[in-house]
């Protein structure tokens, strides 16, 4: 790929090539400036095992934020979306104080988590330039990349329903023009250079800086030139910890689908499967899955989410829960088929089925398969959250919590559903239907065990977070210690205890209700109390509470 900048600068016909002057700051000479060439983008083509990267010189930056504005103007983004962001890092004692600025776009990482996590292959690492490109067309707005990036580079554009990010002004760079930020910087602090990928993998210490997450997670390619000073620089936005988005649709989706899996599991053990019972589970699953679809920026394209099942846990979750729904639907149909009276529906197939001696066993097998899909989906769903960018999620407690939550709710939930179906069977309008009275007996000690384990899991998680070596982990505890989150946290434990106690005194409906409230609250806190890794931002970033 050629960069015809030199040629275009030499003939002086194109004004843009003079906009970044190689001798910026030297005395200006109108007569010679036309032949001055930018040195801020590579002058040669890329070779094997090379890619482009940003070099940001911290010692040159004066924190003017021209790059930030130029980026938004270049990309026509709304003002709340900043593909290039400025951060402040500060340290020392008056008057020997240092404050420096970080100006960061995308780091076009070698092991980009955004690329790996995307369920629809909206991200590609350009084979020629190494630029991490994002396709708004392919994107379904699941925002998993927003969670995955340790630098919080991808940003969701609510107006569009898709994510967007810095593409190193790919369209400019490949035309021999410097990116907008490079072009705008009055201090020539940002430039594009070539990096050898193999060499960088071996030594990427120049990607590290105070105020930036560790580069090892994704192998950021951005090279930083830092001041030579013993002064310890620290981020200045650490006091700005704010609750994250609650993702209520995900709170409900995960809770309900775990409840359904748990319920099905207990009903299987207690031999409580009835057609109506399965129908109710199927209905709840349908609701849960539909809720989750509307968490997408582009719900109409939800179906695309299974595409990258080979590498994305999000795809796998969708795949497993899809299978869960499918096999639950088959179970339900099978169960109905077994009991439908011939007066209602006559078919040779039905008759064969109803007289098949192994029909009940087949249903049980099908149901176990369904439970298997539910568990697999739940585990896949937990793995979505096991990402370095979100330390308070990235713990073994997350899959434990998801499974234990299913068990905690499931035990009583199955019994409550049985009561509901038994009540429905007494309704006059349903008298013509083959609704048998179910009399499965549910032991409640598993609820107590699950509840205690659930609480133990959460307590250990909180203790470990409070001792986390990462600021973001400890910051989650700071958030949970604030009003009203602290009250919610206490309430979730009270509900967990209450659920156990009520189960012991056989107040099953209330126990189930308490279990639901406990899990919903804990899941809500799970989402809002996460403090993502991010680059250092400014003291006044964003709005204020």
């Amino acid at each position, binding site marked *: 790929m050629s960069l015809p900048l030199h040629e275009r600068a030499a003939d002086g016909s194109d004004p843009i090539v003079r906009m970044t002057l190689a001798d910026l700051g*030297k*005395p200006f000479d109108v007569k010679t400036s036309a032949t001055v060439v930018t040195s801020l983008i590579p002058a040669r083509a890329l070779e094997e095992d090379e890619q482009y990267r940003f070099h940001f010189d911290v010692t040159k930056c004066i924190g*003017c934020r021209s790059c930030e504005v130029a980026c938004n103007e270049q990309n026509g983004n709304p003002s709340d979306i900043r593909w290039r962001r400025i951060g402040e890092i500060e340290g020392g004692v008056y008057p020997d104080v240092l404050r420096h600025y970080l100006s960061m776009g995308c780091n076009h990482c070698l092991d980009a988590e955004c690329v790996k996590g995307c369920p629809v292959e909206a991200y590609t690492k350009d084979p020629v330039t190494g630029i991490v490109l994002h396709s708004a067309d392919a994107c379904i707005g699941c925002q998993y990349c927003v969670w995955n990036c340790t630098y919080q580079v991808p940003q969701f554009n609510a107006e569009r329903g898709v994510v967007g990010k810095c593409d190193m002004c790919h369209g400019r760079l490949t035309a021999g023009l410097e990116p907008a930020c490079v072009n705008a910087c009055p201090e020539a602090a940002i430039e594009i250079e070539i990096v050898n990928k193999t060499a960088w993998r071996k030594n990427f210490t120049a990607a590290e800086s105070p105020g930036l997450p560790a580069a090892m997670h994704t192998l950021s390619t951005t090279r930083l030139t830092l001041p030579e000073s013993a002064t310890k620089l620290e981020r200045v936005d650490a006091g700005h910890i704010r609750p994250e988005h609650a993702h209520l649709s995900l709170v409900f989706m995960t809770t309900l689908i775990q409840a359904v899996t748990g319920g099905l599991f207990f009903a299987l053990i207690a031999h409580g499967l009835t057609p109506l019972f399965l129908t109710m589970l199927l209905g709840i699953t349908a609701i849960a899955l539909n809720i989750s679809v509307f968490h997408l920026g582009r719900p*109409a394209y939800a179906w695309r989410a299974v595409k990258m099942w080979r590498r994305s846990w999000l795809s796998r979750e969708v795949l497993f829960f899809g299978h869960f729904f499918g096999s639950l639907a088959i179970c339900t149909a099978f169960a109905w088929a077994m009991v439908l009276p011939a007066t209602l529906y006559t078919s040779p197939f039905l008759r064969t089925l109803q007289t098949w001696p192994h029909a009940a066993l087949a249903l049980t097998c099908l149901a176990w398969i369904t439970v298997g899909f539910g568990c697999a989906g739940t585990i896949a769903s937990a793995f979505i959250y096991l990402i370095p960018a979100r330390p308070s999620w990235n713990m073994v407690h997350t899959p434990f919590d998801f499974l234990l939550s299913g068990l905690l709710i499931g035990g009583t939930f199955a019994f409550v559903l049985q009561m509901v179906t038994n009540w429905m069977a007494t309704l006059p309008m349903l008298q013509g239907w083959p609704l048998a009275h179910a009399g499965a007996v549910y032991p409640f000690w598993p609820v107590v065990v699950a509840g205690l384990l659930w609480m133990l899991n959460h307590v250990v998680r909180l203790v470990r977070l409070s001792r986390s070596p990462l600021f973001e982990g400890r910051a989650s505890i700071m958030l949970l210690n604030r009003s009203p989150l602290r009250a919610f946290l206490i309430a979730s434990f009270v509900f967990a205890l209450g659920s156990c106690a009520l189960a012991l005194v056989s107040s099953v409906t209330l126990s189930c209700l308490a279990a639901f409230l406990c899990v919903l609250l804990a899941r809500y806190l799970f989402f809002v109390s996460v403090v993502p890794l991010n680059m250092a931002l400014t003291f006044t970033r964003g709005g204020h509470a």
Partner: protein
Amino acid sequence: MSMLTSIKRALGIDTRQEDYTFTKDPRFGHIATARVAEKWVKTTCGYCSVGCGMLVGVKDGKAVAARGNPDHPVNLGKLCPKGLSEHHVLDAPGRATQPLLRKDGKLVPVSWDEALDVMVEKFTGIQAKYGREALGVVGTGQLLTEDTYTLGKLVQLGFGTRNNDGNTTLCMASAVSGYKLSFGSDGPPGSYADMQAADVILLIGANIADNHPILCHRLDRTNRKGEMKLIVVDPRVTKTAMMADIHLPVKPRSDIALINGIAHVLIRDGLVSHDYIAAHTDDYAEFATFVEQFTPKHVAAVTGLSEARIVEVAHLYGNAKAAFIGWTMGVNHSTQGAMTVAAINNLALITGHIGRGGAAPFSITGQCNAMGTRETGFTSSLPGYRKYENAEHREELARLWGIDVDRIPSARGMAYPDIIEGAVAGKIKALWFVATNPVVSFPNFSVLDQALRSVEFLVVQDGFHPTPTSDYAHLVLPAAIWGEKEGTYTNSERRVSKVNAIVTPPGEARPDFDIFLAIAERLGVRDELYPGWTTTADAFREWQRVSAGRMCDYSGFTWQQLEDEGGAQWGGERLYADGVFPTATGRAKLHCVPCLPFAEQPDGEYNFVLNTGRTVEHWHTRTKTANIEMLDTMVPQAWLEMNPVDAAQLKLKAHDRVTVVSRRSAVNNLELRITGIVAPGQVFMPFHFSETNSNLVTLGAFDPISREPNFKQCAVRVEKFSQTLI
């Protein structure tokens, strides 16, 4: 939006792809289609005095993009974030679009005819009743040179009041006065190019990284390290101080002691230029005797610097081949501002660091056209740096204008703060503010508030409404702003640059020039003062004649030349190259400048010194930048900087809400920033924000010579903010 579109957007079938496409702009390459212009209009930035050349893209009659003009010698294509987003101001909400007259206590829309009839009737009525000087006018450095020139004639010769001043008195009046004291005339002697040619640059009270960012590349500290020394004098460790090779963290208002101390060392160690002193200065002997007392030991005690540091800096300055001193508001915003400037000039004069490449005492001014107001004047001086007290100057002007010389006043009227105090005292009965927002920018708000409530008629002419000031108005005149008018601005280095209209003003808003002519028409002075004038080009041509032969001579260039050549510097690259100064003796005067403590010292009750300043994202009182979302969301509110030592003592945490209390009033609900960039015992806040107006607490103390307020130091205490106390 149709129902179908809404559904498609909700489902994500429609992602507004059409709003996010990219195209190749023939001039600037690949860019968002929305930023591709049909034509590019050359102009000059309307924010600060750096005077960057711009290209503003226009499409379908709307400004869609702003670019630095790569051919402009000031900025070489670069712009700061305000410049890069300046086209948005032409589309910003909050514009004044129709004349509003207060009727029964409420501002109601009226026609221009009614508005101007009422204005002239009220003003002349008040002048008839209380005397001509009962009218006070406060203009601005935001207008075009042509506007200011026209306004000056209208006020002084049309309305016949001498009480005409500008918001520039809040900004660079001390530099003007200081130059006059030393050199006999205003006029910054140097150029930006000097910042590149100097081997020592001394910046005093100038945070150019925040306030003039496009000057910073001139310092080019990285490439020239070792060759060029940048010394920054500032009590706060500003962005600029952090760029310095040597930062001198002086105690507040000890700058005069430092400057005199440098002079002391220069004389003591024989680093002065006796030839230059003998040939081009007066009063050296007195000066040398005076600075004897400013020994390094004494200066160290006053400034808090070490003796060695003071001597080192003096030696650097004295041994430099070419030394440049730049200053801004840290010097000007002082009750001793004018004399501080004179002290700075002393340094340049005794060493001969003036009138040569790289050597200049250089006031970096504030607003885009503060310089234009200085030159066209009719405020603190007569147009063309002429003096009120000089009969020849008055006669020359009378001849040029074809009017009776007696109509030209022989003494200056009231300065801005005196107009405000005059309103409180009942001497000023009518006020006219043009493109300025004193409610946020004037010190000690409570006195201003009283002034605005005391006058019988208050006219606010502004591009924006409501502003905190237009809320007080009896009459609001909607004016065109930058990008809607044609004329010239003059920047800090005396470079006159062309400013062009890019779009038409919104609603009924009119260019200030048109408003002035319409008023003159009603006063019956239009033909006399502005014979045959229809556009600002007419004003420029007369101004060329009026300035011809003066130091600020505009007669050598046309508008077209200015536009084509990236402006032109009146007086050439530098002034005083021959060492001849416009004083009676032709020699510059050395002044003995005593270092006095600032007026309101901290005490037990008000134990902090409050410093005020700016941030790069905002301009002045935010009438513009608060309406540019991209800038406003960067810094949506003010903050108070406090040293960690003080915060610990007050048991305050970062982001706590605090109240700053002075003897005058209090600023509530400020976010606390705990940082080592301010010294213990000092706090800092930006002044831009009307919501948390620093001028509620600042001191109404003014320089006796320049009348500039002392915005930079007052005594305050800091308390934890409590909602219930409001």
